[in-house]
Protein backbone atom coordinates (compact mmCIF):
# COMPACT_ATOMS: atom_id res chain seq x y z
CA UNK A 1 0.00 0.00 0.00
CA UNK A 2 2.79 2.45 0.92
CA UNK A 3 5.21 2.05 -1.95
CA UNK A 4 6.93 5.45 -1.86
CA UNK A 5 8.25 7.91 0.66
CA UNK A 6 8.65 11.67 0.46
CA UNK A 7 9.03 14.70 2.70
CA UNK A 8 6.68 16.68 0.47
CA UNK A 9 3.53 15.34 -1.14
CA UNK A 10 1.08 17.32 -3.32
CA UNK A 11 -2.45 16.11 -2.56
CA UNK A 12 -4.24 18.36 -5.02
CA UNK A 13 -3.94 21.42 -7.20
CA UNK A 14 -6.70 23.99 -7.62
CA UNK A 15 -8.21 24.29 -11.09
CA UNK A 16 -8.85 27.99 -10.98
CA UNK A 17 -5.80 29.49 -9.38
CA UNK A 18 -3.40 26.57 -9.30
CA UNK A 19 -2.69 26.65 -5.58
CA UNK A 20 -1.56 23.32 -4.18
CA UNK A 21 -2.49 21.33 -1.11
CA UNK A 22 0.93 20.20 0.17
CA UNK A 23 1.63 17.75 2.98
CA UNK A 24 5.12 18.12 4.45
CA UNK A 25 6.86 16.09 7.12
CA UNK A 26 10.50 16.17 8.20
CA UNK A 27 10.31 12.49 9.08
CA UNK A 28 8.74 11.69 5.72
CA UNK A 29 5.40 10.39 4.56
CA UNK A 30 5.03 6.88 3.20
CA UNK A 31 2.36 6.82 0.53
CA UNK A 32 0.74 4.96 -2.34
CA UNK A 33 -1.90 5.95 -4.87
CA UNK A 34 -5.07 4.03 -5.71
CA UNK A 35 -7.87 4.92 -8.11
CA UNK A 36 -9.86 6.26 -5.16
CA UNK A 37 -7.33 8.03 -2.96
CA UNK A 38 -3.77 8.58 -1.77
CA UNK A 39 -2.98 6.31 1.20
CA UNK A 40 -0.48 7.93 3.54
CA UNK A 41 1.33 7.05 6.73
CA UNK A 42 2.62 10.08 8.61
CA UNK A 43 5.47 8.86 10.76
CA UNK A 44 5.86 11.92 12.97
CA UNK A 45 4.25 15.33 12.42
CA UNK A 46 2.74 16.22 9.05
CA UNK A 47 1.59 19.70 8.08
CA UNK A 48 -0.89 20.28 5.27
CA UNK A 49 -0.71 23.78 3.79
CA UNK A 50 -2.45 25.74 1.04
CA UNK A 51 -2.10 29.40 0.04
CA UNK A 52 -5.77 30.20 0.69
CA UNK A 53 -6.61 27.86 3.55
CA UNK A 54 -5.45 27.45 7.13
CA UNK A 55 -2.91 24.74 7.85
CA UNK A 56 -3.75 21.35 9.28
CA UNK A 57 -1.43 19.41 11.56
CA UNK A 58 -1.39 15.62 11.79
CA UNK A 59 0.34 13.51 14.40
CA UNK A 60 1.51 9.98 13.60
CA UNK A 61 -1.44 8.54 11.70
CA UNK A 62 -2.65 6.57 8.73
CA UNK A 63 -4.53 8.91 6.44
CA UNK A 64 -6.32 8.78 3.12
CA UNK A 65 -6.73 11.79 0.85
CA UNK A 66 -9.75 12.15 -1.45
CA UNK A 67 -11.28 14.87 -3.58
CA UNK A 68 -14.76 16.13 -2.81
CA UNK A 69 -17.27 14.61 -5.25
CA UNK A 70 -20.06 16.00 -7.42
CA UNK A 71 -22.84 14.52 -9.50
CA UNK A 72 -23.38 15.40 -13.15
CA UNK A 73 -27.14 15.33 -13.79
CA UNK A 74 -26.58 15.76 -17.53
CA UNK A 75 -24.90 12.39 -17.93
CA UNK A 76 -25.48 10.69 -14.56
CA UNK A 77 -21.79 10.41 -13.69
CA UNK A 78 -19.98 11.18 -10.43
CA UNK A 79 -16.67 12.99 -10.61
CA UNK A 80 -14.20 14.86 -8.44
CA UNK A 81 -14.60 18.51 -7.51
CA UNK A 82 -11.63 20.77 -8.24
CA UNK A 83 -11.93 24.26 -6.78
Amino acid sequence: MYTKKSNRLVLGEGETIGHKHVLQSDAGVQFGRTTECICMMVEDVGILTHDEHDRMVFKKAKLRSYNQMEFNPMDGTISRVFD
Partner: protein
Amino acid sequence: MTMVTYDFRNADYCVCGLRGYKLDQALRLWKAKFETIKHFKRDVIKHSSLEELGNFVEEMWDNILPVAVPEALREGNVEKRRVMFDCIGVSTLFRELNPELLDRQMVHKIRTRWDEHNNAYQHEYDDIYELYRLGGNKLFAGVYPLQRPESIYSVRCWCTTTGREYWIYVPEEAALGRNRWQHIDDKPDALRAIAWTIRIDISSPKRIYRQGDIIIAEESEGSQTVSPYHLSKEQYLALMFSET
Protein backbone atom coordinates in the same frame (compact mmCIF):
# COMPACT_ATOMS: atom_id res chain seq x y z
CA MET B 1 6.39 7.07 -39.66
CA THR B 2 3.49 9.07 -41.10
CA MET B 3 2.45 12.22 -39.27
CA VAL B 4 -1.30 12.17 -38.65
CA THR B 5 -2.93 15.40 -39.77
CA TYR B 6 -6.50 16.42 -40.36
CA ASP B 7 -8.48 19.40 -41.53
CA PHE B 8 -9.61 20.76 -38.18
CA ARG B 9 -11.64 23.58 -39.73
CA ASN B 10 -13.99 21.14 -41.46
CA ALA B 11 -13.99 18.33 -38.94
CA ASP B 12 -16.95 17.25 -36.80
CA TYR B 13 -16.46 17.48 -33.03
CA CYS B 14 -17.73 15.61 -30.02
CA VAL B 15 -18.62 17.74 -26.97
CA CYS B 16 -19.77 16.19 -23.68
CA GLY B 17 -20.31 12.88 -25.43
CA LEU B 18 -22.44 14.25 -28.28
CA ARG B 19 -21.02 14.07 -31.80
CA GLY B 20 -21.69 16.18 -34.86
CA TYR B 21 -20.73 19.72 -33.87
CA LYS B 22 -19.09 22.01 -36.40
CA LEU B 23 -16.04 23.95 -35.22
CA ASP B 24 -17.91 27.22 -34.60
CA GLN B 25 -20.49 25.45 -32.45
CA ALA B 26 -17.86 23.46 -30.55
CA LEU B 27 -15.86 26.63 -29.85
CA ARG B 28 -18.83 28.32 -28.16
CA LEU B 29 -19.53 25.24 -26.04
CA TRP B 30 -15.87 24.90 -25.04
CA LYS B 31 -15.72 28.59 -24.12
CA ALA B 32 -18.65 28.07 -21.74
CA LYS B 33 -17.28 24.82 -20.35
CA PHE B 34 -13.65 25.74 -19.71
CA GLU B 35 -12.70 28.60 -17.47
CA THR B 36 -9.44 29.30 -19.30
CA ILE B 37 -7.62 28.22 -22.45
CA LYS B 38 -5.28 26.27 -20.16
CA HIS B 39 -8.16 24.10 -19.00
CA PHE B 40 -9.36 23.64 -22.57
CA LYS B 41 -5.95 22.51 -23.76
CA ARG B 42 -5.48 20.18 -20.82
CA ASP B 43 -8.80 18.40 -21.37
CA VAL B 44 -9.20 18.52 -25.16
CA ILE B 45 -5.78 18.73 -26.76
CA LYS B 46 -4.65 15.31 -25.63
CA HIS B 47 -2.77 14.20 -28.75
CA SER B 48 -0.03 15.84 -30.78
CA SER B 49 -2.23 15.69 -33.89
CA LEU B 50 -4.56 18.17 -32.16
CA GLU B 51 -1.81 20.73 -31.57
CA GLU B 52 -2.82 22.86 -34.55
CA LEU B 53 -6.40 22.98 -33.26
CA GLY B 54 -5.10 23.97 -29.81
CA ASN B 55 -3.06 26.82 -31.26
CA PHE B 56 -6.01 28.02 -33.35
CA VAL B 57 -8.38 27.99 -30.36
CA GLU B 58 -5.80 29.79 -28.23
CA GLU B 59 -5.59 32.61 -30.78
CA MET B 60 -9.39 32.86 -30.96
CA TRP B 61 -10.15 32.29 -27.27
CA ASP B 62 -10.73 35.87 -26.08
CA ASN B 63 -13.15 36.56 -28.94
CA ILE B 64 -15.31 33.46 -28.62
CA LEU B 65 -18.83 34.11 -27.32
CA PRO B 66 -19.79 31.34 -24.88
CA VAL B 67 -23.20 29.70 -25.16
CA ALA B 68 -25.64 31.26 -22.71
CA VAL B 69 -28.69 30.11 -20.77
CA PRO B 70 -31.35 31.86 -22.96
CA GLU B 71 -30.15 30.19 -26.14
CA ALA B 72 -29.91 26.83 -24.39
CA LEU B 73 -33.57 27.21 -23.43
CA ARG B 74 -34.42 27.90 -27.08
CA GLU B 75 -32.62 24.79 -28.35
CA GLY B 76 -35.26 22.32 -29.54
CA ASN B 77 -33.11 19.20 -29.47
CA VAL B 78 -33.11 17.73 -25.95
CA GLU B 79 -29.65 16.16 -26.23
CA LYS B 80 -28.11 19.38 -27.57
CA ARG B 81 -29.84 21.36 -24.85
CA ARG B 82 -28.45 18.96 -22.26
CA VAL B 83 -24.92 19.48 -23.60
CA MET B 84 -25.39 23.24 -23.46
CA PHE B 85 -26.49 23.03 -19.81
CA ASP B 86 -23.55 20.75 -19.07
CA CYS B 87 -21.12 23.28 -20.58
CA ILE B 88 -22.77 26.31 -18.96
CA GLY B 89 -22.26 24.72 -15.55
CA VAL B 90 -24.10 24.47 -12.29
CA SER B 91 -23.29 27.92 -10.84
CA THR B 92 -24.55 29.88 -13.84
CA LEU B 93 -27.62 27.70 -14.34
CA PHE B 94 -28.77 27.95 -10.75
CA ARG B 95 -27.99 31.67 -10.47
CA GLU B 96 -29.89 32.56 -13.64
CA LEU B 97 -32.93 30.28 -13.52
CA ASN B 98 -34.44 31.16 -10.16
CA PRO B 99 -34.30 27.71 -8.55
CA GLU B 100 -36.59 26.54 -5.77
CA LEU B 101 -35.03 26.63 -2.30
CA LEU B 102 -35.85 23.26 -0.70
CA ASP B 103 -33.90 23.48 2.54
CA ARG B 104 -31.59 25.87 4.37
CA GLN B 105 -29.67 24.94 7.47
CA MET B 106 -27.27 26.84 9.64
CA VAL B 107 -24.84 24.67 11.55
CA HIS B 108 -22.96 25.96 14.55
CA LYS B 109 -19.52 24.38 14.29
CA ILE B 110 -16.63 24.02 16.67
CA ARG B 111 -13.62 22.87 14.68
CA THR B 112 -9.95 22.42 15.44
CA ARG B 113 -7.50 24.74 13.73
CA TRP B 114 -3.78 25.36 14.20
CA ASP B 115 -1.82 28.59 14.61
CA GLU B 116 1.49 29.44 12.95
CA HIS B 117 3.33 27.53 15.67
CA ASN B 118 1.20 24.44 14.94
CA ASN B 119 -0.64 24.72 18.24
CA ALA B 120 -4.25 23.55 18.10
CA TYR B 121 -7.14 25.81 19.07
CA GLN B 122 -10.93 25.67 18.76
CA HIS B 123 -12.58 27.79 16.09
CA GLU B 124 -16.28 28.48 16.51
CA TYR B 125 -18.48 29.68 13.66
CA ASP B 126 -21.77 29.24 11.79
CA ASP B 127 -21.94 27.55 8.40
CA ILE B 128 -24.90 27.74 6.03
CA TYR B 129 -25.99 25.12 3.50
CA GLU B 130 -28.81 25.58 0.99
CA LEU B 131 -30.41 22.93 -1.19
CA TYR B 132 -32.06 23.98 -4.47
CA ARG B 133 -34.08 22.32 -7.21
CA LEU B 134 -34.42 23.31 -10.86
CA GLY B 135 -37.46 21.64 -12.34
CA GLY B 136 -37.22 19.63 -15.53
CA ASN B 137 -40.21 21.68 -16.77
CA LYS B 138 -38.11 24.86 -16.44
CA LEU B 139 -34.97 23.43 -18.06
CA PHE B 140 -36.78 21.50 -20.77
CA ALA B 141 -39.86 23.62 -21.42
CA GLY B 142 -41.43 22.75 -24.75
CA VAL B 143 -40.22 19.17 -24.58
CA TYR B 144 -42.84 16.39 -24.50
CA PRO B 145 -43.12 15.46 -20.78
CA LEU B 146 -42.18 11.80 -21.26
CA GLN B 147 -38.95 12.87 -22.97
CA ARG B 148 -38.24 15.53 -20.39
CA PRO B 149 -35.38 14.89 -17.98
CA GLU B 150 -36.18 15.06 -14.28
CA SER B 151 -35.37 17.94 -11.97
CA ILE B 152 -31.78 18.64 -10.99
CA TYR B 153 -30.48 19.49 -7.53
CA SER B 154 -27.61 21.52 -6.19
CA VAL B 155 -26.28 22.37 -2.75
CA ARG B 156 -24.96 25.89 -2.25
CA CYS B 157 -22.30 26.57 0.35
CA TRP B 158 -19.59 29.08 1.12
CA CYS B 159 -15.93 28.51 1.90
CA THR B 160 -15.48 29.75 5.46
CA THR B 161 -11.91 30.82 4.71
CA THR B 162 -12.18 32.53 1.32
CA GLY B 163 -15.89 33.40 1.38
CA ARG B 164 -16.17 32.00 -2.14
CA GLU B 165 -19.59 30.61 -3.11
CA TYR B 166 -19.88 27.06 -4.40
CA TRP B 167 -22.69 25.20 -6.13
CA ILE B 168 -22.34 21.43 -6.24
CA TYR B 169 -24.73 19.12 -8.08
CA VAL B 170 -26.06 16.25 -6.01
CA PRO B 171 -28.26 13.32 -7.07
CA GLU B 172 -31.94 13.18 -6.23
CA GLU B 173 -31.56 10.55 -3.52
CA ALA B 174 -29.06 12.74 -1.67
CA ALA B 175 -31.29 15.80 -2.08
CA LEU B 176 -34.65 14.27 -1.19
CA GLY B 177 -33.76 11.15 0.81
CA ARG B 178 -35.48 8.78 -1.57
CA ASN B 179 -34.97 7.08 -4.90
CA ARG B 180 -37.17 7.93 -7.87
CA TRP B 181 -39.02 4.60 -7.66
CA GLN B 182 -39.91 5.01 -3.99
CA HIS B 183 -43.38 6.37 -3.26
CA ILE B 184 -42.53 8.14 -0.04
CA ASP B 185 -42.54 11.80 0.87
CA ASP B 186 -39.62 14.01 -0.09
CA LYS B 187 -37.41 14.96 2.82
CA PRO B 188 -35.08 17.58 1.39
CA ASP B 189 -32.00 18.01 3.57
CA ALA B 190 -29.11 20.34 2.71
CA LEU B 191 -26.81 18.61 5.21
CA ARG B 192 -27.47 15.16 3.78
CA ALA B 193 -26.70 16.68 0.36
CA ILE B 194 -23.34 18.17 1.40
CA ALA B 195 -22.45 14.95 3.27
CA TRP B 196 -22.98 13.03 0.01
CA THR B 197 -20.13 15.02 -1.61
CA ILE B 198 -17.66 13.20 0.65
CA ARG B 199 -16.87 9.67 -0.48
CA ILE B 200 -14.35 7.48 1.34
CA ASP B 201 -13.30 3.85 1.21
CA ILE B 202 -12.43 2.90 4.81
CA SER B 203 -14.67 1.55 7.53
CA SER B 204 -14.74 3.17 10.97
CA PRO B 205 -12.82 6.36 10.20
CA LYS B 206 -11.55 8.12 13.31
CA ARG B 207 -11.79 11.68 12.02
CA ILE B 208 -12.34 13.61 8.81
CA TYR B 209 -10.60 16.81 7.78
CA ARG B 210 -11.46 19.09 4.86
CA GLN B 211 -9.11 21.65 3.36
CA GLY B 212 -10.98 23.17 0.40
CA ASP B 213 -11.85 20.33 -1.95
CA ILE B 214 -9.38 17.92 -0.33
CA ILE B 215 -10.84 15.45 2.15
CA ILE B 216 -8.58 13.59 4.58
CA ALA B 217 -9.90 10.55 6.46
CA GLU B 218 -7.87 9.34 9.42
CA GLU B 219 -7.95 5.60 9.95
CA SER B 220 -8.83 4.08 13.32
CA GLU B 221 -7.39 0.84 14.71
CA GLY B 222 -10.27 -1.09 13.20
CA SER B 223 -10.40 0.59 9.79
CA GLN B 224 -10.42 -1.62 6.72
CA THR B 225 -10.61 -0.86 3.02
CA VAL B 226 -14.20 -1.16 1.83
CA SER B 227 -16.17 -0.25 -1.29
CA PRO B 228 -16.36 3.54 -1.64
CA TYR B 229 -19.38 5.06 0.07
CA HIS B 230 -20.81 8.53 0.56
CA LEU B 231 -21.06 9.91 4.07
CA SER B 232 -24.45 10.13 5.72
CA LYS B 233 -25.51 13.34 7.40
CA GLU B 234 -24.90 11.72 10.80
CA GLN B 235 -21.37 10.64 9.85
CA TYR B 236 -20.63 14.05 8.41
CA LEU B 237 -21.66 15.83 11.61
CA ALA B 238 -19.95 13.34 13.94
CA LEU B 239 -16.64 12.83 12.13
CA MET B 240 -15.70 16.25 10.77
CA PHE B 241 -12.83 17.38 12.97
CA SER B 242 -11.34 20.29 11.08
CA GLU B 243 -12.51 22.38 8.11
CA THR B 244 -10.89 25.32 6.44
